């Protein structure tokens, strides 16, 4: 097994660098759904010829980049309702089929944002639980449950310094034990049956992370 890489000679990852890191870890030829918001930017970093096919839950495989100018077609949008383009080999299908391919385990990877991820891989990303918030789930639960691998992209801490990788989610859950990797500005975490391991760090060390988190984290290859 490879060992943890600690990048101590630099600061935390920027948003673009984080998207590039996620793109690097998507196996060539995968069928992938990128969530609304920051996960969408992963597409900009997929290498040419990767063979990755993008799925959008409103009924398309082979989604291309955002549409501009004359390319804009109101009948061709992504899950964030942004006009997009189609690539050669694209296909369209209705909503029940789109979610059947998700729930049925045919999607290799989905990338989602999160409010919190627990040490068991529970995901909270749809609802703050605030009493005046209007609940809106969209396809988040279906993606969390259905994709073979769920990658989360988020900052490791909130603006006030509270960790978002936690022993137990306090926000309403999206899915149980569904997240396998967490990509953050400070580190990449792998979540498995043995707990949380740190694959890479940026501007900090495994020990540095451990001192700021309530979750037990260990380097790759070290037994729990």
């Amino acid at each position: 097994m490879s060992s943890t890489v600690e990048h101590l000679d630099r600061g935390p990852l920027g948003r673009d660098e984080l998207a590039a890191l996620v793109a690097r870890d998507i196996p060539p030829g995968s069928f992938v759904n990128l969530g609304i918001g920051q996960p969408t930017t992963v597409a900009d970093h997929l290498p040419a010829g990767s063979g990755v096919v993008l799925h959008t839950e409103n009924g398309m495989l082979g989604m291309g980049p955002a549409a501009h100018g004359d390319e804009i077609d109101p009948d061709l949008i992504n899950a964030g309702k942004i006009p997009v383009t189609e690539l050669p080999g694209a296909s369209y299908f209705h909503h029940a089929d789109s979610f059947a391919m998700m729930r049925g385990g045919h999607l290799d990877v989905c990338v989602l944002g999160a409010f919190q991820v627990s040490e068991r891989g529970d995901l909270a990303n749809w609802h703050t639980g605030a009493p005046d918030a209007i609940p809106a789930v969209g396809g988040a639960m279906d993606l969390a449950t259905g994709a073979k691998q769920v990658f989360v992209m988020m900052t490791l801490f909130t603006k006030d310094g509270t960790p978002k990788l936690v022993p137990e989610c306090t926000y309403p859950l999206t899915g149980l034990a569904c997240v396998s990797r967490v990509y953050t500005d400070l580190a990449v975490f792998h979540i498995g049956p043995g707990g949380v391991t740190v694959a890479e760090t940026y501007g900090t060390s495994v020990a540095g992370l451990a001192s700021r988190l309530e979750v037990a984290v260990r380097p790759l290859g070290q037994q729990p």
Partner: protein
Amino acid sequence: MTAVFTDPEEAVAGIADGSTVLIGGFGMAGMPVQLIDALIRQGATDLTVVSNNAGNGDTGLAALLAAGRVRKMICSFPRQSDSWVFDGLYRAGKIELEVVPQGTLAERMRAAGAGIGAFYCPTAVGTPLAEGKETRTIDGRDYVLEYPIKGDVALIGAHVGDRMGNLVYRKTARNFGPVMATAAALTIAQVHHVVETGELDPETVVTPCIYVDRILDLSAAEGSL
């Protein structure tokens, strides 16, 4: 036998108060705006509306909500940057909301159209949206029992229809249309134009005519609007 209309009012005639209305579209793609506008003029009220979103801006579904015709929304994603009409009604306690995961929403309508009594679905297990629902472990995995959503009426948007009621769609405007068409007692589709029977390649028909009761031909209707 499918009836082809050029007058939106005639296309929506007879929709009763208290109906459950399935409304297609994802954002504005596939949204049957002319049928919704006609439904507003038709006047049916106390409706339960099933749609992915709860209206955008002030037109279409948002206008139906603003007119006070909807008692309950069943949808996956009501809250959007431009959903101020729904947001206002919800915060004022003037509308009920049932939030359903998007794929479960589609599958519940698919089940209704396919004669399935209920189904076990892995989505939402362990979350607030599974509270109070029957669960079952099958082959080591947990599932939630979900029931069909059947419509009295479906209003959908398609691209082209033929005179028998066969429909084809365009790109991601397909979204909920084919599923909703199967799940309602009365399915009304608005299409950009109608072709003669036999002009659609049978291999490309997405919604077979058996599911479609009425078609509104927008190419003929637009002049009358």
